[in-house]
């Protein structure tokens, strides 16, 4: 009788330990299976989000002032700015022909001149096109944007804040009217979508696509 009871208890204990061990090992296996795809997924999501950001950065409302030349561009065809406007030493034009000679604190829809606070060109370190006005690749723009030696020291949160709050960034979604009264075109994403994509990209560690 006593021998049978001990045997029963032993069998129950072995079964219990085996079950617990199986559960622990299975759970570990699930964790391991899940962990790697999650990392890949974050990077993939980040790269996909960057591509969305890139479409905005290379849209005329943004890239027209991120030139590699000594002049800004204008229009959806990104032609050279008229009236002999040039970059000047700091990107604000020159004394007799400053950016703010025409561009005021906000859009002047009655005269068709766009405006925003401190209207000026992006620095040459933030050029997103070559000297023939061809936009850089996604990889090259990404490298420039994430290079703190070129981007005024902005880290991920800083870039997100820049895309969220910078007045000249916000202007792209409120670009006013052309001299003929028609509305200027907008970037391909809404500002909310642009900020969300930037957030996803920053959250994923700001991955950049490979290549030149």
């Amino acid at each position: 009788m006593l021998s049978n009871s001990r045997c029963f208890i032993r069998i129950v204990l072995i079964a219990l330990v085996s079950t617990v061990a199986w559960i622990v090992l299975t759970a570990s296996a699930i964790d391991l299976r899940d962990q790697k795809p999650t990392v890949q997924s974050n990077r993939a999501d980040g790269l996909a989000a960057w591509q969305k950001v890139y479409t905005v950065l290379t849209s005329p409302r943004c890239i027209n002032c991120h030139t590699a030349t000594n002049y800004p561009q204008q229009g959806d065809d990104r032609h050279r700015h008229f009236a002999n406007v040039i970059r000047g030493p700091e990107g604000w034009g020159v004394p007799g022909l400053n950016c703010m000679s025409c561009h005021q604190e906000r859009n002047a829809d009655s005269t068709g001149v766009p405006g925003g606070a401190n209207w000026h060109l992006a620095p040459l370190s933030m050029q997103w096109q070559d000297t023939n006005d061809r936009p850089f690749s996604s990889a090259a723009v990404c490298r420039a944007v994430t290079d703190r030696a070129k981007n005024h020291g902005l880290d991920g949160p800083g870039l997100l804040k820049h895309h969220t709050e910078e007045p000249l960034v916000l202007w792209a979604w409120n670009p006013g009217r052309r001299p003929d009264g028609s509305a200027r075109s907008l970037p391909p994403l809404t500002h909310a979508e642009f900020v969300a994509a930037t957030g996803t990209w920053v959250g994923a560690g700001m991955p950049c696509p490979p290549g030149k």
Partner: protein
Amino acid sequence: MATYQLKVNGQSKQVNVDPSTPLLWVLREELKMTGTKYGCGISACGACTVHLDGVATRSCVVPVELVGNRAIVTIEGVSADPIGRAVQDAWVDKDVVQCGYCQSGQIMSAVALLKATHKPTDTDIEESMGGNLCRCATYVRIREAIKSASQQLK
């Protein structure tokens, strides 16, 4: 219509105009200050240049509603400034003017240049004056006059 209190050549001026009226037309039509000229109306020629807080500004494309409290200086008031006086004297001395239509804008841009750079190079002059067109092509004399004025500045 709206009422605006403008600071023009050190004096306060009140105007009652449509907010979208370009500053050029407020100066010329409301205040009868016709020294500032209408050339192209799209900021391409510089004839309408005035100073807003010292910045050479194309008055033909700036609606009066965006002027705010900034000090406006026009060709009628620029001689009150020593640099403005030096430029105007140099313009006379070098006999720059031919038809004269663009010259008030040329002088306003030249004053802005010399306020920023007392000794401008030829490149500085060409770049800074590049937005001021002269159909009489007085560009060579304009450059001479700017250099002459710069020699009067300390």
